[in-house]
Each structure stands twice: as C-alpha cells, then as structure tokens.
C-alpha cells in the first residue's frame, strides 16, 4: 500500500521543495520507502508500506515509454492480468503490483482500469501526450484527491498532501460538513475542504491541455439477474466466489489477523481465512471486541451485548487461530479523536466503534500483523437479508407468495409482530409525504435535529434545505422495495476509504473480502428469493455456512451489539466532553455550525438507565458523539488558539 501525490505544472514546472513537503506529509502512511521523481512539468511522490511479498520489488514511479505510473493498492487478479499482458508467470512473480498496473496502463491506456481488480487508486502521467489521468477502484477502497489552480494540477492520497503546496487553501466546505452531520452520502466530487476535489469511486479524472474532465468508468448492473437451475447451484457458486475473495486477500508479508464478532460476516471471513491459511501452515489472529468483564447492561430488543461467546465458539473450531478478546469500553470516546482526525483528514462517524477498532489495530500492530481482515460490506453482499422481497412480492401482486413468506418469517422469528411485517411490506409503496405523515402520527417520525448536531439556524438556511433536497437522499428513511437498487445506491455513493489509509500509519492494511468486486456483482445478481426463503433471512449465506460456523452464531436469535458498554465510557468522559464542547463554543465557526447548546443540555442530563432506548442512543451515541467529532474536525480544519 502506498500514499501517492504529484504535481503537473505546465507553466513553471513543479517546485521540488513543495514536493518534498508533500512527501513528508505522506511519509507516515508509507514508512518503508519514499521516492520522489521529477521530470519536465511533472513531479511525483510515493511513500510505501510493504504488506505483500511483491512489495519488495516496488520501485515507483514505474516508468515506461508511454506512461509513468503511481499505484496505491493491491491487485487481486495478478495471474489473470499477467496472462493478459503476456508476462510469464516467473517474471510476474518478481513484479510488484504497481509494475503490473503500469504495464496495463502502458498497454491499454485509461481503459486499463477495467482490468485491475482489487483496492487501488492510481495516477498515470503520459509525457508524450502531456496528459495525466487519475482513477479509483469501483468501491473507492483507496482515497485520491486533487486540486487545480491555473496551470498547476495537483493530486494526493489525502487533502493534507495538497495543503503542503502553496496556494491550496485549507478551508472547510460547509456544505459537505452539513452532509456529514445529516448522514447524507457524498455528492459529486466535493470533499470536506473547499477547492479540494475527490476522484470518485469508479471514476477517472483526465487532465489534458489544462482541461479537467471526470468520467464514470464503472457502474453496477441493476438489471442483471443470475439464473441457475437449482438452489444448490447458487450456494456452490456463492461459495466459490466467497472463498476466492478471501483467499486472494491473504497474500501478506507478515501475520494476518481478522475481526471476529458474533455476526455472520466477520465470522465467515475468519473461518475461511483460517482454513486457507491452515493449508499453508500459517496462523491467524482473530480479534473480538467485548464489553468489560462483569458488564450486564441492557441491550436493545433483538440484540445481545457480549459477542465473546459466539466468537469463542468459532475460534475453538479453528486450530490455527489465536483468539484475542479486546476490552476497550473504559477508554474515553475522545481519547484518540484528534489522532484519528489527523490521520484521516475527516471526522470519524462512530466514536463508539472507533474505540474498539483502534484497540484492535494497536494490538495487531504490536504483534507485527500486516493484514487485518474485516467484513464491513457484508450487509450489502454476503449477508444481505433479502427482506425487501416482502414489499417486492406485494408490489408484483404475488399475494400468495407474499403471505407464505410473511407467515414463515413470523414463525421463525418470534419477535416479529404481524404489524411490523405488514408495515415493512406496505411502506415502500406509500407516497413519501403519506409515509412521513403516518410516521409522525405514530410518533416515530424522525427529524434531523433528533439525531444530528447540525445547528437549527444553519439547518433552516435555504441553501442547506436546498442542498438536502438536492441530495436525492431520503432522510426519513422510508423502506424500499428494490433490494438490488437499494444496495447499488449505497455502494455507489459510499466513499469512506480514510480509515483504511489511516491504518497504514500503524503498519496495517485493512482488507475486506466482503467488498470484493466480483463477489459483490455476483451477490447483486442473485435473485432475492435466494436471500429470503421460508422465513429464513440471509438464506444463501446460512446454507453455505451451515457447517462452517457454530450454532452459537448461525442459530443465534439475536444480533451482537457493538461497543455495548459505550455509555459507561461516555458517562466517565462527561467532564472531558463538557470541556470539549466549551472549546467548540469558543471556536467561532464550530459554534455557528453545531447545536452546541443542545449537546451541552444533553450532557447535563445524562440518564441513569435506559441506555438501550432508541431516543437515548440517538441523542448520545449519534448526536452528541458525532457532533463532538464533527466539531473537533472543524477545529482541525480551521485551527484556533482559543
């Protein structure tokens, strides 16, 4: 994994001192090697973290007659790509991923992006054509930002790299901050900083003759449906895709570790990784975040607070797994907030979860782990529940099938009420205003101030309202009937690669097999009836994992609650939070953007019990902590000495 950056200045040529600063800023993300290349109007820098055996061959920028390439990432189809390029296996084995990517760029120009599978972002400078193009993988696993001013075009893995160049202002983009506070997805190519643009996932940015053009090169196919003869065929094909997605992510120059909760996604990834590593005589470190010993706090309905037992049950089955339980509940949610913001150039969205995630990463780094597997995209891929099948059946008028499925679901999951199932089936078909009216009548309608720390005056600003309307995002969260379209919308608008590059500072690479492009496209194409059948949600994965996972996981009637003891840490950190909010009050801009009075009032009346209640979770876990994180980010973006 690398952090990359560069400048093309056709008027004056790049300034070496500025490039050195850019490199210095990116050095923590690639501590193993740093290189600077300067020729004509183009200057490129790369810092490298070696996580695969082939990274030892990395000598970026890779120079070919047609192109000079910077590549940040990992290729998961090396053999396939080498064969297409006509490179012998022996020679390919001694080539870094960056070199293979450069060969592809030299051969296929910007169409090479269709041949590259994995987590990547790249920059390709074509000196003969005086043309630069940048691209990111379809899921945007690696970040890339750019800035243009006059004849100078600059790019970097993180905005902070661009700020090392003179003339790039570090000014907060209030619109994007509003999106962040309102939990809206990213819109367009804007970033959290004014003038700094993102290369969007699955997009290519071409700079030629002073013109910048962005184009989308990848779209998920919403119309493709996979039709196989038998139900078992789906399971077999699914298993093949999933095992390949895990196996190609085990290429590492050090230890491999994984997240292991009591849920399906990480448990499946862990089990498959352990099995594959065992065949090579290698081990796996599996991490489970658990509440403090003796914690017996309340859990929301349908959830359990301790993920340890389920995880332990799986770990016991896997001989080559070292199972590590991580307790991080006592750590203040603010403990590493500043550090995380500095590493990511953005605010973490969920402070409760960053606590245990950071604790796991710290332990992994101390053990010399190079690769940490996760299952973050599982909900959108392998463990898709299929519950949108209910409104879909209703919408198609297949009332018999709908009734059968509803009855079966009621039978399997006793916690489900008839009214809930009916509402879930009908709600997607209601007109939006009617849905929102009904929600309000039932006292369930959520307005932004319920869960967002955005300042009421700012929210009432016509420009903000217009922005919310223009986002095309339903902030009332009305259920939808088309599960595939829903998932594609989420996947295409999700762009959160910063935690992955921040982990590089700890010497780790995060890899998510559940976000494998081939696997995702397969899962999207699988018909909904393979995910919900006879009252079984996640039916496809459950069938596949029947023998892979223990009954403590497959048969659990409840889902694990991450950071269940979050409220204890929050209560203990109340004075610290109060001080942080006062600091934000003194900071002019943070005080204008955030509803600090509301946050302080919430903090002043911390509940003694009932932390599992929805409104408490919304007020404290979402609004207070997310608002505090957003405020800390404002302070970071626009520092003040107050």
């Amino acid at each position, binding site marked *: 994994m690398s952090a990359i950056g560069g400048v093309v200045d056709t008027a004056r040529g790049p300034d070496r*001192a500025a490039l050195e*600063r850019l490199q*210095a800023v990116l050095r923590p993300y690639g501590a193993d090697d740093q290189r600077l290349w300067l020729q004509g109007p183009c200057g490129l820098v790369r810092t490298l973290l070696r996580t695969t055996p082939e990274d030892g061959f990395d000598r970026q920028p890779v120079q070919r007659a047609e192109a000079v390439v910077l590549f940040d990432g990992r290729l998961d189809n090396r053999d396939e790509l080498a064969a297409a390029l006509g490179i012998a296996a022996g020679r390919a084995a001694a080539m870094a991923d960056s070199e293979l990517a450069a060969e592809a760029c030299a051969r296929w120009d910007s169409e090479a992006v269709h041949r590259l599978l994995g987590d990547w972002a790249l920059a390709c400078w074509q000196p003969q054509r005086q043309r630069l193009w940048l691209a990111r993988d379809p899921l945007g696993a690696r970040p890339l930002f750019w800035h243009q001013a006059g004849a100078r075009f600059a790019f970097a893995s993180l905005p902070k790299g661009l*700020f*090392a160049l*003179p*003339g790039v202002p570090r000014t907060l983009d209030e619109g994007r901050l509003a999106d962040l506070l309102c939990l809206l997805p990213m819109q367009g190519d804007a970033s959290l900083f004014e003038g700094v643009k993102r290369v969007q996932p699955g997009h290519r940015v071409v700079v030629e003759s002073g013109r910048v053009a962005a184009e989308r090169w990848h779209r998920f196919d919403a119309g493709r449906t996979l039709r196989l003869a038998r139900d078992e065929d789906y399971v077999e094909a699914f298993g093949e895709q999933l095992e390949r997605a895990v196996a190609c992510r085990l290429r590492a120059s050090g230890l491999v570790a994984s997240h292991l909760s009591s849920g399906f996604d990480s448990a499946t990834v862990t089990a498959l990784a352990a099995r594959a590593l065992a065949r090579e005589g290698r081990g796996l470190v599996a991490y489970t975040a658990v509440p403090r010993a003796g914690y017996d706090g309340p859990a929301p309905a349908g959830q359990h607070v301790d993920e340890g037992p389920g995880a332990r049950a799986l770990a016991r089955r896997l001989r080559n797994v070292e199972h590590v339980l991580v307790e991080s509940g006592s750590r203040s949610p603010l403990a590493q907030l500043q*550090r995380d913001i500095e590493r990511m150039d953005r605010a973490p969205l969920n402070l409760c979860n960053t606590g245990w995630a950071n604790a796991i990463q710290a332990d992994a780094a101390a053990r010399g782990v190079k690769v940490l597997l996760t299952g973050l995209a599982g909900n959108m891929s392998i463990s898709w529940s299929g519950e949108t099948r209910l409104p879909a059946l209703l919408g198609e008028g297949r009332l018999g099938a709908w009734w059968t499925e509803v009855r079966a679901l009621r039978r399997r999951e006793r916690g489900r009420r008839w009214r809930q199932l009916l509402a879930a089936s009908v709600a997607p078909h209601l007109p939006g205003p009617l849905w929102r009216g009904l929600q309000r009548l039932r006292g369930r309608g959520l307005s932004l101030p319920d869960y967002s720390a955005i300042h009421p005056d700012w929210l009432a600003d016509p420009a903000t309202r217009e922005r919310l309307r223009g986002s095309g995002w339903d902030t009332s969260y009305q259920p939808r009937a088309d599960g595939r379209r829903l998932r594609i919308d989420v996947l295409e608008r999700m762009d959160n690669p910063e935690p992955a590059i921040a982990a590089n500072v700890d010497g780790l690479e995060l890899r998510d097999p559940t976000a494998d492009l081939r696997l995702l496209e397969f899962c999207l194409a699988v018909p909904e009836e393979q995910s919900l059948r006879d009252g079984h949600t996640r039916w496809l994965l459950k069938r596949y994992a029947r023998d892979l996972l223990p009954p403590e996981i497959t048969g659990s009637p409840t889902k694990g609650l991450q950071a269940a003891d979050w409220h204890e840490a929050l209560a203990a950190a109340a004075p610290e939070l109060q001080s942080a909010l006062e600091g934000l009050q003194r900071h002019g801009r943070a005080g204008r953007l955030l509803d600090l009075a509301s946050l302080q009032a919430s903090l002043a009346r911390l509940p003694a019990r009932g932390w599992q209640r929805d409104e408490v979770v919304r007020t404290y876990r979402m609004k207070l902590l997310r608002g505090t994180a957003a405020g800390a980010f404002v302070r970071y973006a626009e*520092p003040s*000495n107050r």
Partner: protein
Amino acid sequence: MNTGADTAMDGTLAPRWPTVYAAGAPLQGWAPALQPGTPAPRAGADAQAAWQRWHDPAADTLFAPAEAPWYGAAERARVEHLAARELPGLALNLSGPSAGRNPRASCAGSTAWRVSPLAASVPSRPATKTCSPRAAHGRGPCRRRAGVRAPAAAGARPRARPQPQRPAAWNTCSVPRLRPQRGAAADAEAGPLDEALAAPPQDWRAFDPRWDEVLPASRLRRPADALALQALQGAERGPLQRLALQLRHRLAARRPSRWVFDLDEGRLDPRRLSRLCVPGAAPAVFRDLAPAPVPEACVTLLVDLSGSMRGAHALAAARAIDLALPALEAAGVRCELLGYTTREGADNPVQRAWQQAGRPAGPMRLNALRHIVFKTAAQPWRAVRPGLALLLAPDFGRENLDGDALHWAAARLARRPERRRVLLVLSDGQPHDEATAAAFGRAVLEDHLRQVIERVEAAGTRLVALGCGPGPARFYRHAVTLKGPEDVAARLFATLADLLAPEGGR
C-alpha cells in the same frame, strides 16, 4: 539613565559586566549614584543588577531634566526596596557600607538626562478590556508612567529571577521585530546578520510594530507556575531520562577521541616502557584519551507557546526540553531556547489601530509579537530552568505568528559564531492569528511562513520542525510528524542526534 557621578563604578564594572554578570548582554544604563566615593564591588554590582532588573528606562522619558535627579533617587530607592524584598541576600549586600547612596551627590553630579530613543517612540497605549497580569505586563511602561511607585504595578511584576547573586541585564522594553536586540535578547558573541535574514519578506510587514516585545521568560513567570515545574520534576521521567542518556551517549560517541602520549600520568603505554631503562630519559610513559574539541554547533529550540499548545503538548515539550538541554550542554553544544506567541488575542491594540486608520490594505500583521527568551546560548540551563514554568502556565499563550517568530529566531542564530547552526521548531500546527486572518485571510500567514522558511534555509541554517499532526510538515521541508505528545521526547532526541552528527557522516 546615567548620572555620570559614579565613575569608579563605571570604570571597574563596565568592562566586566557583560561577561561576568549579564550572560553576554550589554548594560542598559547605570543606576544613579546616591553618594560620592567608590562603593564596595559587591554592593555596587548588586545595586546595578537591581537597577537592571526593576527599573524601566521607558519611564525616564516622563521627567524633565530638572526633575530627573529627584526621580532617579526615588526610583533607586524603589528599586532597592523591591530588590530587598525579593532577594534577602542582595538586601544584605545593599545595606552594607558605601553602597552608593547620596541623593544630594547624585543630584549635584547629574549632567544630562538621557532619553532612550526607543522609549521615546513608545506611544501612550490605550488600555485593553482584559488585563491579566501577564497580558498587562507588556503595557507596563504605560502603567508605570502613571505611577512609578504604584504598588499595583510593583505587584504585577513577576517574581525575581533564580540567581539573585548573578544579575542579568534583560531588556523589558518593546523591541521592534528582528532589529538587533537590546539587552539579554542579544548575545555577547553576536556577529553580523546574514543577508538572507537581514530584512523580512518584502510583501510582509507589521501594521504597527511598536507593541512587539522580546522578553526573558523570567519576566512573565508567576510564582504559581513554579508548582507546575515541580510537578514536571516529580513526574515519571524514567523512560525519558533513559532517552536523554542515550542522546548524551550518541553525542559523545560522535566526538572522536584521540590518544595523547608522553604524559606523566594516565594509562601505562607499553610501547614507551623501554624509556624506563634508559638513564636520564624522560619518564613520560603514560598515555590518555583526550576528547576532540567540542562540536562547533549552536542549536536553537523555538517553541510555539500559543493557546493550542496548552495541556498535553506543552507538558510533553517541557519534559523533552528539560532533558534535552542538559544533554546538549554536556556534549558541549551551545543551545538557545526561545518561545513565541502574541501579546493579545483577536481583539488587540494593533488591530484597533488598524481599524482606526481606516483599514489600510495589506497584507500586514495585526497583532503584537511576544517573543520569549528562555535561555540564551551563553546561559547555563540550570540558571534559567525556572523560566520553563512559563511553558506550562495554563493561561499564557495567545496566537502564533510562526513566520515572524522563525525569522527572529533564525536571525539570532545567524549571528552566532558557530559554523553549524541548527534551528528546531516545536509546534503543533500552522500559523494562526485571528485578527490578521480575519482581515487578510489565513493564506497570508501561511505564505509568509513559507517565505521565511526559504530564507532561513538559504542562509545555511539547518531547519527542522517537530509537530503533532500534519501542520509542520505542510510548511517545512524537513519535518518530523509526531504520533502524539508522548512522542515528543523520543523524536526530539533522535532528531538532535541526527542533526549534530559529524558532517558527512549522516
């Protein structure tokens, strides 16, 4: 002020003053003599030291020549009263015979009332809304003009310096930015200024530099701050001390030793033992290791004292500095410790003056600098260490104008005679001054800093910045990004060891 009456004191003390008493700083005017005759050397020196410490030359401008001798006598009485109260040992010396008190003689011998040109240029300043003792200190001349003996003014002044028996001649007046410093802000070994640093960047200026000041840390330190320093001493420093020891060893290891032969004592030299058998031959059969001359280097540590450094960052920096400076001294490396912030925050007299002047176009600086000298290159650390408490004071720093501070520190360093000059900046981010940024945008501060960095590097100074977060790396070509406050000491020591490695050996 110089009455000219006490010529004996002038004659004996003047040549010795800068080197013996004032850590290299020249004397800023003599105390008026109070009686004829030659005072005892101890008493005379202490009287002059007290005068340097408690008398403000700016107040001299308030009196007509005819009033001056009377004021001088009263002022000396006030000064010695304060000295006696603060420093009992000094009081004993002053109370001895021939301490030089004779108002009549002083008045009679008075020749001319010398007005400091600088003091004359200081205007009467409007009072600001908030006025903590520290914030008010810089406005001292104004207050003292109102009442020379005012107890409030005396009370507002900080406690005494740590070495009462060794006076230092600090200049308490406002000093225009980067002009040759007066008082202790300058150095006895100061040389000419490099051309690259001789003037600030052309497109940068202060709207009104008259509020700028350079002060010794001891002037701003309050008694309460000493507690923080004690806490620093008592804190768990084991790991840091080990790192400091490693630094010492690394620096010592880089001083190549050489053997010296034919000594009368030392280690026995087997190759010269035969001399013992030769009658009449010199019995110098010993050898010993002699260290090579100390590295010709001067290190300046420039510390950001702004509000954002408060708390963990400042504490970590203080711990690291407290161990690094003795290590450098032990290795024979000259080192200077400087700090910087501004006198006020967003609402400040410079900004108000700019507004009253009709907001002339910029860019220009709209705040008053407060540069702090914790330790000059000539001072031993143990003598000035109490000043470090200022770094830990919870309410001290305001804004940070990094470009101006860097220019000042680099200019000081450039005057040093050492061939190798290292300037190490400890900061937590980017330059920030709310008043300037509001008027001209933050970019002007950043551009100015970048220009100054270019100049400093062009002048041959090795410039490195250490800082938490990506801030310093945005501006400095050589920046060390700290993972957190706990990282300061380790990275500082490692950086110092690298920077002070023999040239060509890195």
